[in-house]
């Protein structure tokens, strides 16, 4: 089932994020180190303001850390605040994002929302369409392919967002409270989807959540408090 669980999807070493300086200095994240193996689903818990989103944006190459190193796969991508790769290109090829809100492009259909992620990654239009359709079917929303986002339910939108995140077969999927806007049934479905994707496609998945009902889905769970990371289970 998990063939390459010991191969790292991501490795973060002593990463910190400090905003401001002097009297206005805020240490949002301090010397955080962890790894996520490919095929592993990791949960990240913690109260608001603990630094979860800071960690997610740092390892998601959206907001660089102040210090520390981040490796994704075999590549050193961040050395302190310095990007060692073209971050936009790296995000395109290696990282998938899912957020609390689906953040679908409102003027694109469900199919096109997935297709665009593939075309951005230079996949030919026709191939992109086929792959996007496969993903929508895989996630159970194939019949809604021609619907615009506002025609879909919250759960369906989130499935399309997951399909978009998976489109380029990323080695790392980052999810920031993906079930917050869903009812418990739909939330559970999405969490199980991450588990399925991680195990079947070998991607490392980090899920930030407040939802303790889904803890059983995670292979490991971290807890963050005051900018520091602790292994919970």
């Amino acid at each position, binding site marked *: 089932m998990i063939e390459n669980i010991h191969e790292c999807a991501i490795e973060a070493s002593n990463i910190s994020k400090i905003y401001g300086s002097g009297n206005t200095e805020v240490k949002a994240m301090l010397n955080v180190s962890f790894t996520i193996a490919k095929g592993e689903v990791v949960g990240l818990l913690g109260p608001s303001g603990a630094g979860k989103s800071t960690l997610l944006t740092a390892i998601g190459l959206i907001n660089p850390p102040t210090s520390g190193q981040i490796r994704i796969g075999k590549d050193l991508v961040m050395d302190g605040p310095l990007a060692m790769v073209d971050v936009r290109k790296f995000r395109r090829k290696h990282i998938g994002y899912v957020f609390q809100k689906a953040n679908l492009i409102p*003027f694109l259909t469900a199919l096109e929302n997935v297709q665009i992620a593939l075309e951005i990654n230079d996949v030919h239009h026709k191939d992109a369409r086929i792959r996007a359709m496969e993903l929508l079917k895989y996630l159970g929303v194939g019949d809604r392919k021609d619907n615009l986002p506002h025609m879909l339910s919250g759960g369906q939108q989130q499935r399309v967002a997951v399909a978009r995140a998976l489109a380029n077969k990323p080695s790392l999927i980052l999810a920031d409270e993906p079930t917050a806007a869903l009812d418990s049934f739909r939330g559970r479905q999405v969490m199980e989807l991450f588990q399925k994707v991680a195990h079947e496609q070998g991607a490392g998945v980090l899920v930030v959540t407040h939802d303790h009902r889904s803890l059983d889905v995670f292979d490991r769970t971290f807890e963050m408090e005051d900018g520091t990371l602790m292994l919970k289970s």
Partner: protein
Amino acid sequence: MNLAIRDIRHSLPRFLLTAIGIGMLLMIVMGMSGIYRGLIEDALLLVDKIGADLWIVQHNTRGPFAEISRIPLKTEDRLCAVPGVKSARAFVSHTIQRERNGKPLRIVVQGLSWPEDKGEWIPITNGRCLSAGHFEMIADQSLGFNLGDQLPLGKNIYTIVGLTRGMVGQGGDGLAFFSLRDAIAIQFDTSGEAIRLERDARRSRAIQQDIGNTQPELLNRAASQNIPALAGPMVSAVIIRTEQGADIDKVAETISGWKDVSVHTADNQKSLLLKGSVDKARRQIGLFRALLVIISAIIMSLILYTLTLDKIHDIAMLKLIGARNSLILGLILQQAIILGGLGYILAFYLGKWIFPLFPRRVIVTGNDLVWLAVIVLAISVLSSLLGIWKAMSVQPNEVL
């Protein structure tokens, strides 16, 4: 995948309304250009149609298109005797205003040297040229006459025998062609009372002169009908055509030696028209057109900036999933060009429908359309810069 088209399709009514607004604005730019062109065409129309080689006008004046010019009708005969002159004919042009059906009617009266000139050169769309030396007229359709209509002017009644289209003076008033004698009669129409008063005035002036006292018969003659009350006919100019192969400059040089007239070539007359009476209006319209182009650019910038602001979150999302700047730039630029292009097409068809309703001619040439297309393209690109700048400054973390 073309994001610009998909975004437009998604908010089509809003986009179409915006395009209509831009189209109407561009139609005004197009219209100003057409009014500018029409002004020049109208001003040059008569000079072009008459096809004279030389214009002979009152000494030290610039001719009837620039200022008042008066020369005796007999100058026509003197000019015919100049070597190299093929034909000479008097030119009379003056504007009159009358009332017809309760509305003001402005007519540019043109005199034709009947019987040499019956108006064969006039582009008549309906009816015929003059076939009699008196009481016939050819009128432009813009004056609102029909064939056979009769118009009382002065002491006479004139019948419309021919109609033209688009023959207007530099002020945009329709032209009407009469025989020269009729045109002069209309210009110098004087009431019987004015003539009687003039005769009495002559008699009183004669009484105060020695000659009036020593020659009493003069007093009788001053008041009699045998002496015309008014001076002999004067015309605005005499236009001449030179013989084939004749040196126009040499003919002009010969006539220039006369102390009572000045000579202008046809090109000179056109130049005087454009630099004279038409010039200020031309510059005013030109400046107004430039202002409209700037205003259009500003409005389009604001529209495109607003359209971009509406998509900031989507642009941030696209950046987050790794979209290249070229994709986002293309989205905004393509929408700008589609908006400008659609506006341009709308402006063209709206103009085609509306411009003929204008009281003066609006002439939009192919050349002007090409220039405006280039300007619209430039405006579209320039006005998208603000939106592009905003889109480029969006950070992917704005999705969060």
